[in-house]
């Protein structure tokens, strides 16, 4: 990723079954400028193929607000992948 396209660093969090699946609670990600949340997800789905199947049964948050998948990330963002919530 280093090279022609400038990159940015973000924090990526996984919860619930997604955390179990990846074995990863928190990761420091480096992404190309202009990347969307969907592209962040695809990166991890490549690394953890089982993740891909959960794409339609999860949501994503950016800086602790639920976000659309086509939202562009910015340097320093806190991004989290969240399975269906079941509190209460």
């Amino acid at each position, binding site marked *: 990723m280093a090279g022609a396209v400038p990159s940015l660093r973000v924090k990526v*969090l996984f*919860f*619930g*079954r997604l955390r179990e699946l990846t074995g990863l609670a928190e990761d420091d990600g480096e992404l190309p400028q202009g990347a*969307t949340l969907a592209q962040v997800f695809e990166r991890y789905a490549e690394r953890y193929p089982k993740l891909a199947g959960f794409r339609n*049964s*999860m*949501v*994503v*948050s950016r800086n*602790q607000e*639920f*976000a*659309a998948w*086509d*939202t*562009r990330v910015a340097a320093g963002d806190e991004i*989290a992948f*969240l*399975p*269906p*919530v*079941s*509190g*209460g």
Partner: protein
Amino acid sequence: MAGSSTVKAIEQDKIELVRAAIDAGALVRDVRAGQDGAIVTFDGFVRNESDGRLTSYLEYEAYESMALGKMKEIAAEIHEKFAIHRVAIVHRLGRLEIGETSVFIAVSAPHRGAAFDACRFAIDTLKRTVPIWKKEYFADGAVWADGELPPTPPSAKSAS
């Protein structure tokens, strides 16, 4: 409701994530005041079965900072929507045994209608929007509870 009174009310609210047993009586005392006449509470606790299987215990985990933020948004929203006075919303995390309270909500109001409506809105919204997850442990294994997908903005493009 004027801005200043709303802010005051929210400062008196008790919105917490805890790891120890929830003291419902203390929370009810927190929301109780002389100008009120009604308190409605919701106590959600661990059932001994899930879909016919006997539960051993549960574990709750949360995206804590976001969950707390969403719980505070719920409190602010019910102050705006309903003529209520004070709110307590407390969710417990970690391991919970059968019968233990996982979530407790108390709402005080001068009149009962608002207290009922606000308490119900609070728990319904919490279950849809607060990033907390429950894992159910049985004698022969464990599963993540079925949950609800929080509503999200449809597209960043249309939003900007």
